[in-house]
């Protein structure tokens, strides 16, 4: 096993592209190290990206925010501007594991681990976040939702690294929220989850909406019918019920040790409703 800590993204890409055996990228390590300790993976090459300076920054640009791949989730919560613009994304990142884990883990790691139950991913998908990917062929920007292709699988090619997550600048009267269901209060994995992102007009009518569900299918679901069900309306009791009903129907969950199909469907609806209510209030809706 080789461990290398390159200083530039180009070097990191070069190492990964040139590797012969199994290779892994190490940022916070809260998934990788656990899997290594458990004996599930034994990579031939580990590329630690934490020494690459630009990956450890949150940058506010004219277009919005760029969150580096090595920024720990706890740091997201320390950025007042990010919290104000994307409270749902930040609250999702701050639900991962525990306080200690949040000091290490990253949203890019959470995305690339490709678990259907990843906490930050539904919030990022609802937010319409994009990933900036660097590889041997150069840079490209792709929607976050297209990164995971199934449990443990991503669309990234050999040698590719996500260097940052990009979030748009906020339109006025916008708000997002994320909720997950866990049987405990922390240190747990979502049984099912929902992220809702809304923009309203001056009268509180929803003009744009994105609703994403986690742990409800092999990858995070962007439920377009759910958005359609609430666009053009105020988010009143009837609209919320419609939202819940559409989410219930859109789920394609499985029965497993964490929950049943029936349970996940019902709770997906309940969480969408509750996250919708919070997002609506954050957007200034009454």
């Amino acid at each position: 096993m080789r461990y290398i800590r390159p200083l530039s993204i180009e070097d990191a890409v070069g190492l990964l592209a040139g590797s012969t055996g199994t290779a892994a990228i190490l940022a916070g390590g809260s998934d990788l190290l656990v899997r290594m300790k458990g004996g599930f993976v034994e990579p031939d090459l580990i590329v630690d990206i934490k020494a690459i300076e630009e990956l450890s920054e949150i940058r506010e640009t004219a277009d919005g925010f760029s969150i580096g791949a090595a920024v720990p989730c706890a740091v997201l919560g320390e950025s007042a501007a990010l919290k104000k613009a994307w409270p749902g994304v930040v609250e999702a990142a701050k639900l991962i594991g525990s306080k200690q884990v949040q000091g290490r883990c990253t949203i890019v790691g959470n995305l690339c681990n490709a678990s259907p139950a990843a906490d930050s991913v539904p919030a990022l998908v609802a937010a319409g976040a994009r990933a900036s990917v660097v590889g041997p062929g150069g840079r490209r920007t792709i929607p976050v939702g297209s990164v995971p292709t199934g449990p443990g699988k991503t669309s990234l090619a050999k040698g590719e690294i996500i260097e940052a997550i990009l979030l748009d600048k906020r339109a006025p009267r916008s708000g997002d929220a994320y909720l997950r269901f866990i049987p405990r209060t922390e240190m747990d994995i979502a049984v099912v989850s929902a992220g809702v992102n809304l923009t309203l007009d001056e009268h509180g009518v929803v003009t744009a909406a994105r609703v994403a569900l986690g742990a409800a299918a092999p990858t995070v679901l962007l439920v377009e019918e759910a958005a359609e069900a609430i666009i053009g309306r105020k988010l009143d009791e009837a609209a919320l019920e419609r939202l819940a009903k559409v989410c219930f129907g859109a789920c394609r969950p499985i029965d497993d040790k964490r929950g049943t199909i029936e349970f996940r469907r019902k709770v997906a609806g309940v969480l969408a409703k509750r996250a919708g209510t919070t997002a609506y209030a954050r957007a200034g809706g009454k």
Partner: protein
Amino acid sequence: MNFDPRFSTRNFASVGTRPIRPDGVDKVTGRARYGADFNMAGQLVGRVLRSPHAHATIRKIDTSKAEKLPGVKAVITAADLSDLTDGDAAMYDILDNCMARTKALYDGHAVAAVAAVDARTARQALKLIEVDYELLPHVTDVDEAMKHSAPLINDAIFTEGLEEKPVKPSNVTKRSQFGHGDVHQGFGHADFIVERSFKTEQTHQGYIEPHACVASVSSDGTADLWVCTQGHFVYRQHCAQLLGMEASKLRVTSSEIGGGFGGKTHVWAEPVALALSRKAGRPVKLVMTRDEVFRASGPTSATSIDVKIGARKDGTITAAEATLRYSCGPYPGSWAEIGAMTAFACYKLENVKTVGYEVLVNRPKTAAYRAPSAPMAAFAVESAVDELAKEIGMDPVDFRIRNAAQEGTRSSYGPVYGPIGIGPTLEAVKNHPHMKAPLGKNQGRGMACGFWFNFGGQTCTDLNIGMDGSVSLAVGTVDVGGSRASLSLVAAEELGIAYEQVKAIVADTSSLGYNDMTDGSRGTFSSSMATISAARNAIKVLRERAAQMWDIAVDDVVWEQGHAVAKGEKHGNLGKLSLKEIAAASGKTGGPIAGHSELVADGAGVSFATHICDIEVDPETGATRVLRYTVVQDAGKAVHPTYVEGQYQGGAAQGIGWALNEEYIYGKDGRLQNPGFLDYRIPVCSDLPMIDTQILEIPNPNHPYGVRGVGETSIVPPLAAIANAVSNAAGVRMSHIPMSPPRILAAIEAERAG
């Protein structure tokens, strides 16, 4: 020794105070040595290969490739552990559980082990061992295993305890029955009858420290074992017997213990580590991973219980009956029997009958878990009791008070009670402010009672007085809950000296006589009795030495508040002699001063508790939140009240986890799906409210200070108290533990659907 253990009233100076524990600084600074903290020069890393199958015949094991791997120093299979059990069936089961002999009986059953120079080599070596399995049909559910069509786990087992000897083998190893009166007649006199079936899933003790040991076998046949255990003397006996050693040639030292709760009362890894060390000729350290702890140590039983209770309109129970089926893993046990004994122990009943069935399943061998078997029986009985009170229209506390056992009651399992605490705990609960606190929307309150026998057992203690007057106390019960502090208080009390003058240690097996396992809540009960006895023997020596120093008759010397005092008119001019002064002179008066004690601590007083719990249920998701929790329990006499409270809180915390989320989940393939703390959900800090406690002290007549064991009873009521609270909050009776959100939501929806 003419030690008199009977209780007598006294005023305490040290006992009942709350000094800092002597092991505290080392534990919070990381200096304390737990099982995995022992190391020896040249030590190898031991690793165990485990069956991935629930039930399989082992046709052949080929270890040749693993043996050839550089760095591998020993590979063993069952062939390296000859059967020396000489017809002792229980020991044979322990041997077979340590290393499968002909069949793998559960997912995780050890089949081979290696010792290598490092962990990586050991892991690689395991991958090179080829095991040829023939898969057999398996059964993991307790009710399924009882069916005639179920796969047989051991075809040499025929149900014991039946009137007629069965002709066919069965997964039911034993039937046991307890009770008195005529339940049929009793139900005939009832105005109300509640009858219901309950299930509880298998749970693990969840101790934070995994099993760990270092074994070092010398070429002369002697050996040392450093191990995290609740009973190093018992581990010595078992390891020596399994490996064909004389017990005295195996010295076992117990480490600090990061939780045991009954789960560290059985050997698993230790005989394997010794066998590896014997073969390799070097010390071997063997530490279980968390995955191994879940799959291959000893969780508690899964159960299926039917309860029927009848009562008259005035609230008097006329008859009570229960059938209890407990899983034992693949080897016979007596878990249902204990459940059947404890089920109705809180009540004064004219007609009672309980029947227990021990059931084999393809799961790890069941081990004790804090008041083993009692919580599940209490869950079923106390749920039915609550329901019956509701049907009669009585307050659940008043209904229990009316039927509570008292001094002179013949218990449902046989013996007649002495002075007991069930009535007082119920009265305390009735008057507790918690019972009157208002509840909000979707909130419910539940309460329940619990019983545990407690145990005394063989105990040996040494008390040595140094020449500077400080006292070393060597005990043989492992300190699982602050007993070194408690026993130091007891020694200080008897000798009349300061707590700080006493230093207690847990001695190894070669330094002290045999001690039973630290189980049955016996640590402080039995070792305090032995400490009192040893201290009194030391006082006798101190008086003799003082008499010698004064040159007077020993009968004229009494011991008062840490001093020898000369009595009688002719000694009026003699000043007191302190323990320190007598100790300083000991070299000239006959040598070291010590007190020893060897005894069987009989008369462990039975223990009762009543708990109250408030729960909020989210009716849309089935999520629960414990809002408030109160434990009321009889301690007899609380030696160190802080650690008594800690035991009360710990039992409640574990009970809350068991009631709400913890469970072994098996797949259809018979493999454990959740062998880790991520998906086996013990409560985290933020899941629990501060658990309030109230200590009652109804003296145990069989202990000089009135002490009763306190460690276990606190886990008996929680399953039922929480189930009653959830049932009240959700408006539907919950009969399946754990009451996980999917189960609660399903029950609410079923109730809504009518």
